[in-house]
C-alpha cells in the first residue's frame, strides 16, 4: 500500500483538466483478413491520424484480429437518419425483378 495517499479533490478544476481536451474522435474499421471488407470495430480518441492508428491497433487488434486498419475522423461520416428508414429505403422495396428468383429457368437447364 502506498505511504501517502493523494487527497481526493472535489473540485473539478483542481484535477488539472483545464487543458485536458479529449482529442478528436476517430471511427475504426478493421479488415480481418486480406480480401475481406473493412468492418466497423469502434472508436478511439487521438490528436492525429497516426496516433489514432496506433491507439486503434492497441485497443482493437491485440490478438491478430486484423491485417489492416482504417481510421476516419468521426465528424466526416455522413449517416442516414433512422427516422427516415421507411422512405429512404423505399425505392428498393417493390423491385422484385432485381432478384434472380424473379426469372424462370426451365428444369434441366444447367449452370444458370
Amino acid at each position, binding site marked *: *500500500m*502506498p505511504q501517502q*495517499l*493523494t*487527497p*481526493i*479533490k*472535489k473540485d*473539478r478544476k483542481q*484535477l*488539472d*483538466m483545464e*487543458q*485536458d*481536451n*479529449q*482529442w478528436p*474522435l476517430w471511427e475504426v474499421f478493421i479488415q480481418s483478413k486480406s480480401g475481406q471488407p473493412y468492418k466497423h470495430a*469502434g*472508436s*478511439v*480518441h*487521438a*490528436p*492525429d491520424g*497516426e*496516433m489514432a492508428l496506433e491507439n486503434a491497433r*492497441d*485497443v482493437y487488434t*491485440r*490478438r491478430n484480429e486484423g491485417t489492416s486498419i482504417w481510421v476516419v475522423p468521426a465528424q466526416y461520416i455522413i*449517416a442516414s*437518419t*433512422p*427516422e*427516415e428508414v421507411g*422512405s429512404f429505403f423505399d425505392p428498393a422495396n417493390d423491385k422484385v425483378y432485381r432478384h434472380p428468383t424473379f426469372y424462370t429457368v426451365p428444369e434441366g437447364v444447367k449452370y444458370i
Partner: protein
Amino acid sequence: MPELSQQELEARFQKKIDENLYIEPKDWMIDKYRQNLIRQISQHAHSEVVGMLPESNWITRAPNLRRKAGLLAKVQDEAGHGLYLYSAAETLGISREELLDQLLTGKAKYSNIFNYPTLTWADIGAIGWLVDGAAIINQVMLQRASYGPYARAMIRICREESFHQRQGFEIMLTLCRGTTEQKAMAQDALNRWWWPSLMMFGPSDKDSPHSSDMAKWRVKRESNDDLRQKFIDRTVPQADFLGITMPDKDLKWNEATQHYDFGEINWEEFHQVISGHGPCNRERISARIKAHEDGKWVRDAAAAYANKKRQKAA
C-alpha cells in the same frame, strides 16, 4: 413526416425492443433509458479501469515470467475493456472528460469488489477465477442488451474474458497442487473473495432499485438472483476439483431444486463498502487521480506533437 407524440414515440421504441431489435445512437430513445444506460455503462467502464489496480499490484512480483506475461496481458485487456465501454457511453452524448471527472471526484461508482486488497499471489488466482468468472456471467447476458454499441462492446469483451478466468483458475490449481502452505494460501484467498464475488451481482431482486425498467428495456435480461445462482452452481464444482471449500457452512446441493443452497449474504458489508467505507476505496481513487495527473505530460506531448506536424504540413 408528421410529428409523433411522445406517447407514440415511446410505444414505437418499446415495440422495437420487444421485437429484439437494437437501439442505435441516433435513434429516438426514452430519456430515462439514455440516463440509465450512461450510468450503467460508465460504471462498468470505471470498474474495468479501477479493476486494474488490485491486480497490477502483483505484476512485478509474479512468481515467474509465464505468470507475469499472462497477468500483464490480462491487465492490458481490462484497460481495453474500459476504453470500449467509455466509447459506448460516449455515443449516448456524454464526453470522455465528464466520465473521467465523475470517477476521479468520487461521484461515480464502480464495482465494489475492487475495494478489497490483494494480499497474496493467490489473490490473483482468486480474482481471475471468481471475479472474472462472475463478470463473465453478467457480460454474457449483456451481449444481447438492447443498446447496439453496448452489446457489441460486450461481445468483444466476452471473447477476451475466458482467458482471464482460465489464467486465474490455473494459478489456483498450481497452488492447490503445491505445498501445504501454497494450498493454504489458495484457501485463504477463496475465503476472502468468495462473498464479495457473490455481492458483485448486486442486491437481491426485491431490493434492486433499477432492475425493473432495465428488464423492460432488455438491458437486464436476467435477475440478480438468477445470475448469482448460476455463478454458484458453476463455481462450486470447480472448487471441489481444486480441493478447497467455500467459506459457507450452509452451502449444499439441493436435489429438489437442482441448485446449490447457500448462506445469507452480508448486505451490511456491501452497503458499507459501496458508500465508501471499504478497505481500499480511498486508495483506489487516489491511485487513479495520481495516474491521471502523472499522465498529463504524455497527453500534452502528444497534442504538441500533433500540432507541430499540422503546422509543418500547412
